[in-house]
């Protein structure tokens, strides 16, 4: 499995660069991951989403969808697009050290 050096830390990633071991993530890693995808500063708004994703993943075992974040964490989808431009589902999970949410079949 591929590894990458992010913020001086070696992490395991899949072919798209998403972390494959949620245990390798911690909050210090998030700003470095964010920089990788062009988000230079993590605001309170970003952290609210990232922490929700981590807590929800710990309970549910899967990455929350945009719909779930907007409903359960009370962050409107419009805001998610501002915080994580263009591809919020991918970007928020990338920074939170999780796989991208699965589009159901």
């Amino acid at each position, binding site marked *: 499995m591929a590894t990458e050096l992010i913020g001086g830390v070696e992490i395991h990633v899949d072919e798209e660069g998403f972390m494959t071991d949620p245990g390798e993530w911690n909050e210090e890693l998030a700003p470095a991951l964010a920089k990788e995808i062009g988000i230079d500063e993590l605001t309170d708004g970003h952290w609210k989403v990232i922490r929700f994703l981590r807590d929800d993943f710990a309970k549910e075992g899967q990455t929350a969808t945009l719909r*779930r974040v907007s409903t359960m964490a009370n962050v409107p*989808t*419009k805001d998610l697009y501002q915080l994580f431009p263009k*591809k*919020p589902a991918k970007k928020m999970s990338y920074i939170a050290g999780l796989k991208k949410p699965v*589009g*159901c*079949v």
Partner: protein
Amino acid sequence: MKKLLVLGAGTAGTMVVNKLRHRLDADEWQITVVDQNPTHYYQPGFLFIPFGMYGRHDVVKPKRDFIPPGVEMIQAEIEEIEADNNRVKIEGDRWLDYDFLVIATGTHIAPDETPGLEALGDEGPDNVHTFYTLEGAMKLEKRLRTFRGGNLVMHITEMPFKCPVAPLEFIFLADWWLQEQGLREDTNLTFVTPLPGAFTKPVASKALGGMLEEKKIELYADFNIERVDLDANKIVAYSEEEVDYDLLVTVPLNMGAAVVGRSGLGDELNYVPVDKHTFLSNQHDNIFALGDAAALPTSKAGSVAHFAVELWTENFLRFIDGLEMLEHFDGHANCYIESGHGKGLLIDFNYDTEPLPGKYPLPGIGPFSLLEETEMNHWGKLMFRWMYWNILLKGKEMPVPALMSMAGKWSAG
């Protein structure tokens, strides 16, 4: 007397009571099913209505015709599920107690969740439609009769939704129908989806995407709708991308029953979180959810409900005797995809195996070709309506296995 209460007499709920009435001792078990709507819809048939291939009489029958003797059917609105007290409140201030509860309340369109789609219905604009209800499909049939060309857009709001192949089938049939009407050259067909491609899984997505290209249907992927601009006749995404339409056919957001959400039993879309192999609720050990009502990582489709109920019935009989549940549902789905010109495709997949090409064996009738257009698959789809009403709903044996089989499939590599 033990009480089994089933909420919803759609595809899953009807199969459950038919299967169990024969298997549970009538002196020991009372079975009740509640549904507010007296009509059973053959929903796969809605797709054919806009093109005049089916009419209303092809897709409706009374629900009571499919409820076996010995099962009490109550036609009433379900108001609240009080899971901690093992009881359900229905309209008229009536409470129904249960020992075991099956939630089979399905999934429904929720156009109100998307600005601009609130008016989808009788008073709505005449160029915004859906075929996900019988009324909607009939209204679209009427509209198509006066269609003279322009931008026809088939649009999907959000995953998951009922029958994920239906929008593709619609655009394939539209392509065919427009050719027959001599309107195809005057029409741009566009398929707009929140998914990254034509379908969810790579092999099928590639094959179906190729078919869109062949039929000169434009694919607009990764489109997350924010609103419909009714004045400017365009759909607008959160990313501020826009698609113009002259005629919009949309699959609105799908949601589980409101009563599930109200009762604290649902996820963010009112689907019931359950074990994906046994359908037992994550919260209550006497509640199961079957069919579209369950939050499962597989298609919301009648075939899935059918395979699920087959396995669940055996498990339930073990469960009530205090035995471990053995039959493990694998997410098996099996869908015909109508592709126009009297042809169709067949896909067969589960939680772990994506739809693959090959042959689908069916004793006495098959084989059907998988992920390939054939006339045989089209006839399979038409024949299925008879099987649905006469075999499947009544809980009789269907000639297809509940668990997916790799027989006849070519591997992904």
